[in-house]
């Protein structure tokens, strides 16, 4: 947990344009992934969950007015593409992609119980540690539910031959509404499931703390792991300082 967090922080602190350092960081991640049996392509693909972040980073390209690369008018809008903005946005997107992969590796390597224990050892408030543990457990169930709903929707998405072919698939507005309804339905079900889980847990005497059985014993290799994490953070920071920036 500490290693993943330190890696994410170290990557986040790299200055804009540190693509070479980011590549080096990603290669370190891929090396660790190889040890736990995760293929580089698989890891990279799962990192694309960060893709929606692209939407938040894109405006930076147009908001700065230094290093102007292009100016023009699109409809009523006058836009300036800033080189500095482009650099910041691209760096942010790559950082997000790499950081998400670190989180993915953490979830691959650590059991939910060990994550909860780690959060407690880091002195996080109990509700946060418990919520994180439950989220890890149930996000997979919700994912399965979403997949089944999408499968059922696909099963009713027919395209017969004949009149009305131009209307097949419905309008964009209708499709957007349907997708929104699906997401809303999933949210309501998650809420109802949470209620049932709370009732079931309370029936068995739960008091709001996620029990993980016996606490793990102190790790005798902890000093070595802390040294390794410190070395990793220093290495990433040095890469950022010494490797060329674009």
């Amino acid at each position: 947990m500490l290693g993943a967090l330190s890696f994410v922080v170290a990557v986040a602190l790299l200055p804009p344009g540190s693509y070479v350092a980011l590549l080096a960081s990603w290669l370190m991640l891929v090396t660790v992934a190889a040890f736990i049996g995760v293929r580089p392509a698989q890891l990279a693909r799962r990192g694309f969950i960060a893709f929606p972040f692209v939407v938040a980073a894109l405006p930076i390209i147009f908001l700065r007015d230094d290093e102007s690369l292009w100016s023009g008018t699109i409809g009523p809008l006058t836009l300036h593409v800033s080189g500095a903005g482009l650099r910041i946005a691209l760096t942010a997107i790559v950082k997000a992609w790499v950081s998400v992969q670190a989180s993915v590796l953490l979830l691959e390597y650590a059991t939910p119980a060990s994550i909860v224990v780690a959060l407690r050892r880091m002195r996080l408030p109990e509700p946060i540690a418990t919520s994180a543990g439950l989220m890890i457990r149930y996000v997979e169930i919700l994912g399965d539910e979403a997949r089944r709903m999408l499968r059922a929707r696909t099963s009713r998405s027919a395209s017969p031959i004949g009149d009305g072919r131009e209307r097949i698939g419905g309008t964009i507005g209708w499709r957007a509404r349907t997708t929104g309804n699906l997401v809303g339905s999933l949210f309501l079900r998650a809420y109802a499931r949470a209620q049932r889980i709370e009732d079931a847990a309370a029936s068995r005497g739960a008091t709001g703390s996620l029990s993980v059985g016996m606490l793990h014993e102190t790790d005798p290799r902890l000093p070595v792991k802390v040294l390794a994490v410190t070395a990793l953070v220093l290495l990433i920071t040095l890469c950022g300082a010494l490797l060329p920036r674009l």
Partner: protein
Amino acid sequence: MPHSHGHDHAHDAPLAPAGDGTIAISHLHFRYPDGTEALRGIDLSITGGEKVALLGPNGAGKSTLMLHLNGINRPTHGTVHVAGMQVSNETIGRVRAEVGLVFQDPDDQLFSPTVWDDVAFGPTHMGLTAGAIHDRVEVALAAVGALDLAQRAPMRLSIGQRKRVALATVLAMNPSVLVFDEPSAGLDPRGRRELIELLQSLTQTLIVSTHDLELARATFPRSIVVDRGVIVADGSTSEILANRELLLAHGLA
């Protein structure tokens, strides 16, 4: 509820299916991405209008087989023909118009704010006119006795009501083949009786995966027993259910 925009005569026939409702499966093999071989050589032929029960223990491959009928699963080897069309990328849209798949959990199928909207999804996607959609939804809901539930939120219905609405969502597409996954699961005795009456009233080809042997006996003249990815018996339901050794050997008793 959308107002009727006049009668669309091209879609007048109440729930009359378009295709011939035949199923032909040849040398079907299917392997999941993790390497599990779920189907190991299925050969199967069903004529239009036939009612068939698919029996077998959990993990036999029944659901995997059913998902081939509307192209959700694609064969690793072999072919699947529905209403005379081979299931492929080119025909998948038309295949899904011919095959109505009703999943075990109705909540998987109901995602709209109202029952009406849920039943209208399929016809709307098919590109029908507003009038035709209205007519189809009305007829489908009437067929399952759920017209009075049209403006209700699916989440607030009982399990029996949700199952009827789930059926209406596929009936509205006028399929020639109806496939059900455990339709009687979770139903009380009255709900089960109503389900049997409803299934007996349907004229489409019916394929039902079920552990409910009494449902199979009451409704389906033909049964196919699937175990470990192969068909181990195919014949008269009464004969199969009278064969206690067969039932014991394949987890049905």
